[in-house]
């Protein structure tokens, strides 16, 4: 994983841990966990992640990109952001 991807992952992990799991314990969030299946995020939470991508990373999510394969885990988000920023 490149340094940029590492940074992206760290930012996303911190956002999810602080705002939805309310901890700084990194072991509480597995990067491959589905946010919805594990109950970490609900539909409102997914929307807040989209706002975060827009406001903090200037990444706009189009309707057809709003799918689990792009948004429903840290790994999926990192891969999606990489694809969008290439």
């Amino acid at each position, binding site marked *: 994983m490149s340094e940029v991807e590492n940074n992206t992952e760290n930012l996303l992990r911190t956002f999810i841990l*602080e*705002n*939805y799991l*309310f*901890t700084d314990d990194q072991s509480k969030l597995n990067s491959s966990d589905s946010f*919805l299946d594990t109950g970490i*995020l*609900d*539909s*409102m*939470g*997914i*929307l*807040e992640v989209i706002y975060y991508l827009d406001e903090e990373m200037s990444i706009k999510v189009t*309707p*057809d990109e*709003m*799918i*689990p394969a792009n*948004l*429903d885990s840290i790994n999926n988000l990192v891969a999606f952001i990489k694809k969008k920023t290439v």
Partner: protein
Amino acid sequence: MFKPTLIEQFHNICNSYGNHIAIQNNMNLITYKELKSRIERLAGFYQEQGLKQGDRVVLVIDNSINYVIAFYAAWHLGAIVVALNPQSKDHEIEKSINLCQASLLALEHGDLKRISSFIHLDIEILHLSDVIIQGAYRWQDALNCKPITTCSNLNKTSAAQIIFTSGTTGNPKGVLLSHHNLVQNTHDITDYLELTAEDSVFNVLPFHYSYGNSVLHTHLSVGAKIILNGSMAFPQDIVDKIRSSKASGFSGVPSNYSLLLTRSDWPDNPPALRYITQAGGPMSQSLTHKLLNALNPRTKLYIMYGQTEASARITWLPPDFLDKKMGSVGIPLNSVKIEIRDQHGNVLKHNQNGEVYVAGDNIMKEYWNNPQATQKTLINGWLKTGDIGHIDKDGFLFLEGRNSDMIKVGAHRINPLELEEVINKLDFVNESAVIGVDDEILGQKLRAFVVGDESKNNQFFLKKHCNEYLPAHKIPRDIKWISQLPKTASGKLKRHQLI
């Protein structure tokens, strides 16, 4: 004449449409006949646990086939259903159990930790997981019980359901609805929506709220199909499923429609639905126009207004009047009367703004075990809604706002006092105020104003603390630290000055 109760009506429907699909949950399908069989067996289990007419059964189950079985099995025995939000914290569930003195708890999550937290209560516990847990019953074993094939005899005033509405933590209010309330409201709704056994509704609304509860009962009462989808997280997925399932109906709150119109291809290729309904808070005229412009020519849009205390529905706007009466929530249901009154209780004339009062067979019996709250809300049989509006010369109701500080986030109604109570428990907080700020998608979002010791760590601790006491949708993520809250000379919070 007293119409059949909804459980009696369900039995009638099973006789006529036994082979129709009642519920579809992803790949799981169940016919009316099989649903009835499981309901009768679970009712047998409930009876073995000593459950009888009028006892309370608490459900903490996500929308699913099992939710419907657990619900209708309780009615089969004449028990009162208390369905709670499965996202509730354990202490909130325990409080509701104690408030309604429930006899049985049916739980979705079978994890040992959660169930253990309820074992000490004097209540039978049924859980939906496969694991064997000492002191609790497994769903699969319960369904092996001897069925009870006849429904309990109920009269017009028999209590059917308690729905807890947002209150302060110390004072949640349980709306007690009778079978007659629900029968009449269900009948009125199926009438104007022209629902039949050929319909199939695509449902994203939680059944534990009044709107979803109404969608469930109306469709089961005519033998229609209910297609379940757990989450609105991926709108395109929803639209694809509406199309592939060939659903004839969809019910949503304004934020659902906002999401579907902005985050899917719905506007380019509107699904061929027969009807869509909107309730759960006012929808802006701009969103209504957008939705109307993005409807398949065969789709009728029904704008509706209601309250939990009115079983669900109070008014509906006939689709033919959408243009002529834009902004109205419509006319009263067949068995409902509405009046606009001033602050002294005098009835106002057409086009004069005042508080909306409602009477009819749909109005709740009372707030459970809370005569003071009942007395303030039910005035000589009329429900004092807290909503402000007027009736035009043609009898159409227009709402202008509410007389309360309730915040509406998506499908959730949130009482800011409850959140403030939780935040104010923190040592580093002197006082706080929570408001709703406008949001394009959700309608409103939570913002907390906090007076206290500001630091990044404290901001984090505040959210963490909220998470211990509140479900996710009630946790304010937008926190603003201020030096003091705006107040009147007498010390009353000027909430409207916060933004």
